[in-house]
């Protein structure tokens, strides 16, 4: 008796309103709310933070950079949420977040490239490899990541979104503002460039 539930004691629709939390709101409505209410944005963040982090973790190959990328991605998303337009992707706003994360990863990679010599980068990669080895559940591919980092931004973006984030061609095309056909061509060229980059790195 002491712990009779509210649902059984209070007539529905009178003083009781059952769950109507963000957990039950569809993403479209939540995005609209988040444009006005920061706590709704926090809910969007909660829903997608682990997906964005996992993508960043795979794409950067280390936890520290992935952490930074995740934080910056959501900060940028918060600032530019008013400009977000649903692309019709089955992933919803997550596809947009992946795009922001990819841009941030490319920015970070560029900054590192300016700050470090090629030798320094190799040393850093060794450090990253150590970090990966310590994190036994990880299965990243440092050589592949290094080759991706060296590609032109557009190639890097299309391969990251298509294969690492797992977006389909239409989603990637929508995010890049190109047709599906052009996206397929771009992907093909990017793969060819990646193959060349990998060959160069293995013969270094």
């Amino acid at each position, binding site marked *: 008796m002491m712990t009779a539930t509210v649902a059984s004691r209070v007539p529905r629709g009178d003083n009781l309103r059952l769950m109507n*939390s963000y*957990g039950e709101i569809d993403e479209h409505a939540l995005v609209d709310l988040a444009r006005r209410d920061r*706590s709704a944005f926090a809910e969007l963040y909660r829903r997608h*933070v682990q997906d964005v982090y996992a993508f960043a973790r795979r794409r950067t190959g280390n936890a520290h950079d992935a952490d930074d990328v995740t934080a910056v991605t959501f900060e940028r998303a918060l600032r530019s949420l008013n400009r977000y337009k649903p692309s019709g992707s089955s992933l919803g706003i997550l596809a947009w977040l992946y795009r922001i994360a990819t841009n941030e990863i490319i920015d970070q990679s560029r900054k590192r490239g300016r700050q470090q010599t090629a030798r320094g980068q190799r040393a850093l990669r060794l450090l990253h490899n150590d970090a990966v080895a310590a994190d036994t559940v990880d299965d*990243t591919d440092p050589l592949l990541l290094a080759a991706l980092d060296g590609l032109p931004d557009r190639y890097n973006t299309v391969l990251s979104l298509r294969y690492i984030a797992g977006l389909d061609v239409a989603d990637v095309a929508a995010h890049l503002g190109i047709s599906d056909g052009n996206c397929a061509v771009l992907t093909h060229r990017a793969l060819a460039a990646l193959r060349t980059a990998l060959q160069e790195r293995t013969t270094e």
Partner: protein
Amino acid sequence: MNDDLEQRLQRLGAAKVSGLDDARVDAIERRLLAESGPARRASWITAVAAASVLLVLGVALALRRDDPNTLQPGTSTATTVTTATPTSTTGPNTTAVPTTTVTPTTAPPTTSVPPTTSVPNTIPDASFALTVERVGNELHFTWPRYSGDGATQYVLVRVDADGLNTWPPTDARVAVTTADLDTNSATVAFRLQERRRWVVAVIGANRRLIAVSSVAIST
């Protein structure tokens, strides 16, 4: 021709990676909530508008005070305005307010006074414990009955990493409201098996906060 390379990329995309730990997730969320974003920029304009309305109403009130034939609001005026402001920020969440409540004349236009300006002093410290337990797709909440005076409802609210820092909460934050003060538990259907924070608030007339529970975390 590129099949092997595509597979290598796809393997990378499917690689098992450890998740971001809870403490870091909370830290980023706190930073986001403190960040100035579109919501804050939007509210800046409405805050100016609200301030203008308050100014006009203040002048009107002062003029009425000068009239010896009108009732004087007395020294409680300032307090009334302060307590009324949060009520006016509720938006769609006005269903829980008794419709007979007399709303001060300053309340309706002030739809978006930034919460940080008035909230901190209105949220009491946690004074009782809330527990939560998941059973299947439901969350079962339990708290001690409130035995003090002036309470009219329990409100179960979902909160962020910062806890309850805004009152009243937005409508979507309110999970359960009940006027049955003998109740000390609630059951909520909540399928998402992720960490969520909850607080029970004891409220009185005009949705005044009387007591707040500790934060309970569901998973």
